[in-house]
C-alpha cells in the first residue's frame, strides 16, 4: 500500500502509569488487587448534564442512553475519594515532578500554572463521572530516524477504574486502579507510515522507562492511535497494550477505511438507502430453532435497501461490515446481531429468512438486520445501527475504536466532542515554580546502553537491558569488580533461564542480586555458582552464611585436598607433577560450581608441590 498517496496521518497518545507512593488525588497506595479481595461493593448510576449550548456531548449521550448500573469493588487499599464520597486531596507532587522530568526529556515547555480539569467520562470507569486531568507541558519533540516528531501535549491525569465484568445492563468495575497517576503524551499527526508509528511508540516507551519511575508490566502503558487517510476520517484506536502490533493496527485501519470507501462507492452506485422503520419481527421467529431468538423478549429488524452482499463484505481480516453493526449492538448490552448476508445459519432456517424478508418487504438487493434482547435496548441499538448504516453512504465515521489482539479493531463509541471539560474546583491550581522546573533529567537508557557497549564491550541488546533503571545501578556497581558479562549474566540471562524453568523470578529483588554478585566478587562462590544461589533466593530469602553453608560440601576445599594428597601419596610419588590432572578431576567432581576452578587448580598445585618437596 502506498501510504503517501493515501495521505496517511498518524498521531500517538501514550498513557503511562507512574510508580508513585500514593495515588494522584488521595493517599491510597498505587497497588493493584485481586477482585476476590474486595471488602465490599456498591452501585451507582451516572447522569449526563447538558452542556452550555444545550447540546450534549456525542460520546456522553450514547452512554446515558445505555443507562447502565455500575457496580464498584472496594478494597482496604481504596478510600472514600475513589468512591466519590470525599473531596480529592491536592495533586500528588511526586507525580507532578515525574511529569516535569518527562516533559524536559521531550523538549517541552511547561505551563506556569497547572489547572486540574474534570473531563466528562460517563462509562462508569470514573465514579465521579469525570476524569481529573491537567495540562502540564506542550510543544516538544522527539527524534526518530533523524526526523523530528512533534509532541503536542503532556497531561497528568488519573487512571480509570478497571472493568471486571459486563453483564446485560450492569458493568462491574474495580476501584484499585482508579486514581493511579498517569502521564498522557500526545504526538502531533506527523507520522506517515505504520513502521514509523511503531518506532515512535517504542522510543517514547524507552524515554518513559529511563525515568525509573514508571510502572512496569502488562497494562501499565497503553497507546491510543489516531489514524486518518485522505477522504477517510479521524479514528481513534484505544488501548493498544502491545507496541509490537502497532504497525499492524495502523495498516489494518487503513485497509478498513479504504474498504469502507469502496462500500460507499458501491452503495451510491446502487442508489442504496436505509429504511427508518424498526419492524417487530417476533412473530416470524415464533417457532424458531435458534435458541438465542427463542429466548428473546423482543425481536426487531431494520431494512437496509441495496446493502445485500455488502454487510457480509470483509473490511478487515476476519471482520465484515456486519461485525461493525454487531459491535454497536454490544455497546447496548446485546449479544450481537444477525444479518441476511450470513443467513440461513445459526439455527435460523431458509423459510424464516424468507418470511423475515416478507415481513419487512425486503427486495433481493436489500439486507435485513435483526437484533434481540429486551425491548428498549433492542430499539436503541437498532436506531444507532440505522444511523451507522446511513453513514455508509457518506464514508468513514469518526469514532473511537478498541484494539483487538490480532491488530483489528472494534467499534467502541463516537469520537468525543471537544467541549466537555470544566474546572475541578476541589483541587487548587499549582504554580510550577523554579524549584520544580529544575528537577534533574535522567540519562536515557539508549545513551547509557551506548556507554556500556563502549566501556564494557557488551552486546547492544544486552547493553539496552542493563541500561534500564531496573538494573543500571547495580550493574554499574559490579561491572568492574566481577566483569560486565558476568554481571549481565546474573542480572538478566540466568533469571530469564530460570523463568523458563518455572522459578518465581519476580520474587528476586535488587538485594538478592547484590548478594549474589558480592559472593562472586569476594571469591566466596564461583561464577558458575550464581545460578544455584539465585535458585535458592527465588524460594527463600537467606543470608550469606546460610547460602554458603547450603552450597559448601561436607568439608571445605583445603581439608579435601589435604586428605586427597594423603590418600594418593603413591600416585604423586610415581607421576610427580603429572599427578595434577587426575587429582584435579577428583576435586572438581566435588567442587564444580562452588569454587572457582582457577582457585582449585592453584591450591591443588601448591599442595602437590609441597608434598613433592617433603619427600
Amino acid at each position, binding site marked *: 500500500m502506498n501510504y503517501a498517496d493515501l495521505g496517511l496521518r498518524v498521531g500517538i497518545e501514550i498513557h503511562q502509569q507512574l510508580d508513585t507512593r500514593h495515588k494522584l488525588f488521595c493517599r491510597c497506595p498505587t497497588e493493584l488487587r485481586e477482585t476476590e479481595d474486595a471488602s465490599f461493593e456498591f452501585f451507582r448510576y*451516572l447522569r449526563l448534564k447538558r452542556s452550555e449550548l*444545550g447540546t450534549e456531548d456525542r460520546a456522553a449521550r450514547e452512554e446515558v442512553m445505555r443507562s447502565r448500573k455500575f457496580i464498584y469493588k472496594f478494597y482496604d487499599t481504596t478510600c472514600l475519594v475513589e468512591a466519590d464520597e470525599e473531596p480529592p486531596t491536592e495533586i500528588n507532587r511526586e507525580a507532578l515532578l515525574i511529569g516535569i522530568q518527562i516533559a524536559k526529556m521531550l523538549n517541552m515547555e511547561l505551563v506556569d500554572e*497547572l489547572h486540574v480539569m474534570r473531563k466528562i467520562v460517563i462509562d462508569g470507569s470514573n465514579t465521579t*463521572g469525570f476524569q481529573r486531568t491537567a495540562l502540564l507541558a506542550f510543544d516538544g519533540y522527539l527524534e526518530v530516524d533523524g526526523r523530528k516528531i512533534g509532541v503536542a501535549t503532556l497531561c497528568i491525569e488519573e487512571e480509570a477504574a478497571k472493568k471486571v465484568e459486563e453483564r446485560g445492563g450492569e458493568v462491574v468495575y474495580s476501584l484499585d486502579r482508579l486514581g493511579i497517576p498517569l502521564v498522557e503524551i500526545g504526538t502531533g499527526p506527523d507520522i506517515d507510515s505504520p513502521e514509523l508509528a511503531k518506532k515512535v511508540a517504542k522510543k517514547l516507551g524507552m524515554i518513559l522507562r529511563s525515568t525509573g519511575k514508571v510502572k512496569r508490566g502488562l497494562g501499565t502503558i497503553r497507546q491510543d492511535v489516531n489514524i486518518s487517510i485522505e477522504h477517510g476520517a479521524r479514528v481513534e484506536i484505544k488501548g493498544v497494550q502491545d507496541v509490537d502490533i502497532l504497525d499492524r493496527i495502523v495498516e489494518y485501519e487503513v485497509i478498513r477505511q479504504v474498504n469502507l470507501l469502496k462500500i460507499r462507492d458501491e452503495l451510491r452506485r446502487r442508489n442504496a438507502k436505509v429504511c427508518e422503520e424498526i419492524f417487530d419481527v417476533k412473530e416470524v421467529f415464533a417457532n424458531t430453532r435458534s435458541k438465542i431468538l427463542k429466548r428473546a423478549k423482543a425481536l426487531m429488524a431494520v431494512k437496509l435497501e441495496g446493502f445485500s452482499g455488502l454487510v457480509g463484505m470483509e473490511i478487515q481480516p476476519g471482520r465484515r461490515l456486519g461485525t461493525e453493526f454487531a459491535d454497536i449492538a454490544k455497546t447496548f448490552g446485546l449479544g450481537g446481531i444477525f444479518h441476511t448476508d450470513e443467513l440461513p445459519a445459526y439455527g435460523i432456517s431458509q423459510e424464516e429468512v424468507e418470511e423475515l424478508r416478507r415481513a419487512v418487504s425486503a427486495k433481493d438487493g436489500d439486507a435485513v438486520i435483526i437484533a434481540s434482547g429486551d425491548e428498549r435496548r433492542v430499539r436503541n441499538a437498532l436506531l444507532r445501527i440505522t444511523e451507522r448504516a446511513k453513514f455508509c453512504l457518506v464514508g468513514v465515521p469518526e469514532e473511537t475504536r478498541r484494539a483487538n489482539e490480532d491488530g483489528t479493531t472494534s467499534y467502541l463509541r463516537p469520537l468525543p466532542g*471537544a467541549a466537555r*471539560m*470544566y474546572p475541578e474546583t476541589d483541587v487548587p491550581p499549582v504554580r510550577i515554580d523554579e524549584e520544580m522546573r529544575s528537577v534533574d533529567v535522567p540519562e536515557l537508557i539508549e545513551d547509557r546502553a551506548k556507554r556500556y557497549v563502549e566501556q564494557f564491550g557488551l552486546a547492544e541488546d544486552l547493553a539496552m537491558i542493563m541500561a534500564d533503571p531496573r538494573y543500571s545501578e547495580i550493574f554499574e556497581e559490579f561491572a568492574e569488580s566481577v566483569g560486565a558479562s558476568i554481571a549481565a549474566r546474573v542480572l538478566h540471562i540466568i533469571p530469564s533461564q530460570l523463568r523458563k524453568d518455572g522459578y518465581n523470578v519476580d520474587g528476586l529483588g535488587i538485594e538478592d542480586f547484590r548478594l549474589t554478585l558480592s559472593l562472586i566478587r569476594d571469591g566466596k562462590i564461583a561464577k558458575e555458582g550464581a545460578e544455584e544461589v539465585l535458585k535458592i533466593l527465588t524460594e527463600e530469602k537467606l543470608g550469606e552464611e546460610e547460602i554458603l553453608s547450603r552450597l559448601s560440601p561436607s568439608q571445605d576445599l583445603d581439608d579435601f585436598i589435604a586428605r586427597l594428597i594423603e590418600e594418593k601419596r603413591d600416585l604423586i610419588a610415581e607421576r610427580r607433577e603429572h599427578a595434577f590432572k587426575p587429582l584435579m578431576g577428583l576435586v572438581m567432581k566435588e567442587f564444580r560450581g562452588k569454587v572457582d576452578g582457577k582457585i582449585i587448580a592453584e591450591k591443588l598445585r601448591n599442595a602437590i608441590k609441597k608434598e613433592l618437596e617433603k619427600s
Partner: protein
Amino acid sequence: MKAKRAKIKAKGRIFEGIVLPSEKGKIVLKLSSGYNVGFYDYEIIEEEEIEVSFVEPGYPAKRDSLPEVKVISTGGTIASRVDYSTGAVTSQFSAEEIVSDIPELAEICRIDAELLYNILSENMKPEYWIRLARRVYEAIKDGYDGVIVTHGTDTMHYSASALAFMLRTPVPVVFVGAQRSSDRPSSDAAINMICSAHTSLSDLGEVAVVMHASTSDDFCYIHRGVKVRKNHTSRRDAFQSINYPPLGRVWPDGKIEWTGERIRRGVREPELFDRLEEKVALVKFYPGLSPDILDFFYEKGFRGFVLEGTGLGHVSTDWVETVRRIAEDSLVVMTSQCLWGRVCDRVYDTGRYLLKAGVIEGEDMLPEVALIKTMWLLGNFELEEAKNLVKENLVGEINYRTDFN
C-alpha cells in the same frame, strides 16, 4: 452571555482561548482543547468580546392529571448547569430548569418552583427559618399536595427542626439536598430529588428529610425532621436518624416502605407558630471549660441555654453555682454530646446537683433539636410553661421509650 477571547504570546508561542477570571499578574485561558492553563509571563496580542449563546434545553410538558408539588429553594444546588465554554457552574432554580435536569420528576408531579434564598446553609439564620416557615405555610394553604425544600446539607437538620416546631402540617414537608454537587454526573441530587417527590405525595403529615440511605444509588431514607442529623462530612449517606428509626424507605421508582410510626397525611390542620427567640445558646462542655461562658451569654441577654454535656448529661461541678444563678430566670436544658441515648441526671451526684440548680433534662433530644425547641418555646410561651413543655413530646422530638436501634 458575554465572554472574552484572547490571543496571547507566552513561552515563545501563541495561545488562544477564553479568558477566565483570575488574580492580577496572571492570565488563565481555557484552550480549545478544553484545558485551562495559567501564565504569569505573557503578552496579550488580541482581545475580543464574544457572545456565548445558550440554547434552552427542552422542557417536558406538565401533565394536568398529576398532583402538584411546591419546590422552595434556599440555596444548595439541586439543579445546575455547566458552561463548558467558560467552565462556570451555575445553579438553576426555575421549575422548568429543575425538571429539565431531572426529567423523571415530570412523570411524578407538576412542580411549581420558587427561589426563596440563594445562600450557603451555614449562613442560615432564625429569621430565615421564620420566612421559610411562612412560605411553606402559604403553599400548604394554597393546596399543594406536598412541599419540597431544597437546602444545603450542612444545617439542613436545624432548618427541618425549626419548621417542625413552627408548622403543623397536614401534608409532607420534605427537606432535600445533595452531598455531591449536581453539576457532576455522579451527583446524588437526582435520586434524592426523585425520592423526595415521591415522599411529598405520600401518606405523611410531617416535616421530613429525604437523603441517600447508603453509598449506593439504591433508595433514600425518610427521616423525621426532629430526629435526624448530618453525621458525616462528605458521604452521601451522611444523614442518620438518631434515637428513632427512619420513618420509611423510598425508592426512585416510587415504592415506599414505612418503618417508623409517623404522623399521617391530613391528621393535623395547618397552623403556623412563627415566633422564635433568637437569644438561645448551645454550649458544648469540655473538660476545663469555665462557666464564665454562661455569664457571657447571660449578660448579653440570653435566657435560653442548651448544654451539650458529657455522657448522661453532665458539666463540671464548678458550674453548679453559675447554673443555679442563671436558671432563676432562664431555661436551661441538658443534652448529651453522645447524641445516642437519653439524658439522665439522677445517676451521679453532679447530675443531681444540676437538677437542683434548675437544669431540665432534654430526654432523648438531639442538642440541635433542643436548641430549636428552646428558641421556639421561649418565642411562644411564658418561661414557666416553656419549662414544662421542654420534656413534653410536641412534634415527635421526644420518645419516652428507648429502643435498640
